[in-house]
């Protein structure tokens, strides 16, 4: 028997049809839906008189547009946002799909709600009209983002037309040093491979440093597989995974749990399986990192300096020049001397309980620097409740942070949470693109602990100095 990768195994288990030219129909186990990329898809179903084929496997939650202020229960003031969220309310009701409305404590960012509620399970295929669907790969599920036309296709047929991607292995060996987190791993990988390094591939993350991560950390790593260009990121399920999943509302129970577990334990890459591309990084070589430019590949250790365009080759020279101009940075400036105006802690990358604990650990007994605006946006209502129970909310508020309700918030700034032009933000989100957090806003990506450190000193800071 041919040795298979984890990706090969999940793919084979979901192949509903294969045409002679290799075009496949891949069966989809879970379809997550949010308000921004779905209205046109539901409209398409209506116009064609089609139904949702498997409403019980379809889960919707509004997250991108929802305000995160406490007064949101009185309604969304931005009319377009309100219409989009109302459209999701209507579509969820009309098509009979699972739904967590804004008023439900379980509401939150779709990629946090799915795992939290046990919808995401090992060995599944998971899609969503959102590129950060890669997050669910942390469970050993094949999970990737799709466009709205494909959302409609999955709603109508529960399948996707696909060609198989190549296999890529990213191994993080050994142990991480103190102050280095899952976010630093995933940024360091993109820094090494580039934003197109994974194009056409599904990445399997492995190695001792990955095994040692919690599920929260693994979700952070897989979440940014898309920033490395990969279709999906995967981590083979193990005891850490099974422990996280067990007892969740939609996880299997009793005999079904045992049957599921038996299959999940077969979900690993066989000895000798072929990878088309292999990247290996030593865990101890990874430092706390930040981004300096407007692409997630613009990664450097916090101990580094702003590079010059001439440090690069090809199209990157002009791209770096443009980035530095946009970011308002001078080559040669130590990264740790860059002042920040705002700090954002949240997003599907770093809005889980462990992220909030890591940030609170740094903020405990400290205050946010004068003139800096800080915002913590939990990834779901349940994360928020747990953080309040653990006393984290008090730490954030005592430090001077705003303690918000759940949503995507300033990760993409579709709701009122936005940077002003030229405002500079230390952010735990996933993209530092031009205008991402607000028109002409400037984003530096980093881990929650690093963002908390920046809040305390008012500039990009090596968190190890505050530990």
């Amino acid at each position, binding site marked *: 028997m041919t040795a298979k990768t984890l990706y090969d195994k999940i793919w084979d288990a979901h192949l509903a049809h294969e045409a002679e030219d290799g075009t496949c129909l891949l069966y989809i186990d879970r379809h997550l839906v949010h308000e921004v990329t779905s209205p046109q898809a539901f409209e398409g179903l209506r116009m064609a008189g089609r139904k949702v084929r498997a409403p019980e496997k379809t889960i919707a939650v509004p997250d991108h547009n929802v305000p995160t202020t406490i007064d949101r229960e009185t309604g969304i003031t931005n009319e377009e946002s309100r219409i989009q969220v109302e459209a999701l309310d209507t579509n969820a009701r009309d098509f009979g799909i699972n739904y967590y409305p804004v008023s439900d404590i379980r509401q939150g960012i779709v990629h946090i709600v799915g795992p939290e509620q046990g919808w995401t399970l090992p060995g599944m295929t998971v899609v969503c009209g959102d590129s950060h669907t890669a997050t669910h790969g942390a469970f050993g599920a094949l999970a990737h983002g799709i466009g709205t036309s494909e959302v409609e296709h999955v709603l109508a047929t529960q399948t996707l037309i696909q060609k198989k991607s190549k296999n890529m292995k990213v191994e993080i060996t050994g142990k991480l040093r103190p102050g280095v987190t899952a976010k630093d791993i995933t940024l360091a990988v993109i820094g090494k491979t580039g*934003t197109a390094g994974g194009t056409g591939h599904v990445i399997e993350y492995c190695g001792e440093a990955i095994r040692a991560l919690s599920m929260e950390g693994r979700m952070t790593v897989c979440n940014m597989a898309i920033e490395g260009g990969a279709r999906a990121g995967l981590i083979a399920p193990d005891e850490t995974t099974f422990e996280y999943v067990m007892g969740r509302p939609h996880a299997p129970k009793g005999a079904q749990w045992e049957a599921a577990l038996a299959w999940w334990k077969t979900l690993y890459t066989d000895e000798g399986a072929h990878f088309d591309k292999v990247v290996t990084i030593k865990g101890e070589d990874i430092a706390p990192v930040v981004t300096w430019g407007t692409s997630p590949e613009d990664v450097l250790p916090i101990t580094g300096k702003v590079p010059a365009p001439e440090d690069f080759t090809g199209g990157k020279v002009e791209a770096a020049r443009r980035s530095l101009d946009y970011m308002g940075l001078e080559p040669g400036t130590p990264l740790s001397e860059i002042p920040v105006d705002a700090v954002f802690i949240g997003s599907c990358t770093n809005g889980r309980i462990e992220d909030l604990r890591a940030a609170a650990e740094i903020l405990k007994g400290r205050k946010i620097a004068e003139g800096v605006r800080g915002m913590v946006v939990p990834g779901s209502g349940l994360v928020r409740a747990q953080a309040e129970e653990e006393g984290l909310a008090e730490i954030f508020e005592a430090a001077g942070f705003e303690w918000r309700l759940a949503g995507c918030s300033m990760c993409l700034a579709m709701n009122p949470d936005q940077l002003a032009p030229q405002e500079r933000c230390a952010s735990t989100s996933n993209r530092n693109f031009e205008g991402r957090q607000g028109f002409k806003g400037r984003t530096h990506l980093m881990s929650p602990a690093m963002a908390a450190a920046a809040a305390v000193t008012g500039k990009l800071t090596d968190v190890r100095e505050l530990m």
Partner: protein
Amino acid sequence: MDKFTTLTGIAAPLPLINVDTDMIIPKQFLKTIKREGLGINLFDEMRYDADGNENEDFVLNKPAYREAKILVAGDNFGCGSSREHAPWAIKDFGIRCVIAPSFADIFYNNCFKNGILPIALPQEDVDKLMDDAERGANAIITVDLESQTITGPDGGEISFEIDAFKKHCLLNGLDDIGLTLEKASAIDAFEAQAAQSRPWV
């Protein structure tokens, strides 16, 4: 879906790598519940200043390129989010073909669902077409999907690769969902078998 057979028109040069979907269509325009009308906001933050006036320097604002039907760009075009609003905006502007050394995966797939042809070519071919595109209205380019060729203003031909199934759908303007529903019995059979082997799903 609109067919794509041949396309002849002006190509606009955008010699930037990593053009992301936030650049193509910023998030404030994702609040629509329609597919149409996004062309005016294509490349919004590069195309307009803070007061909404056109930036003269941006390629699509230059007289020679206002009617461009083809875009020639740098590596990793369309990286970032899955928003189909990006190809919707490109198409609504009037561009039906994007040529670059490489594309981000989701954007690339989204193009085909909207009658847009994304063509990945070796860097040297893109460089040649970028030079042609710099000549503006004096450089008309023809793209022929059937023969998989691009003909430049000087008559030189460049051939390109494309997946046979995607080509077939684009040439005939086929609806994916309709095609898949023809295979409903295969999906039914798979579902029945999966209900036995993985009943917890």
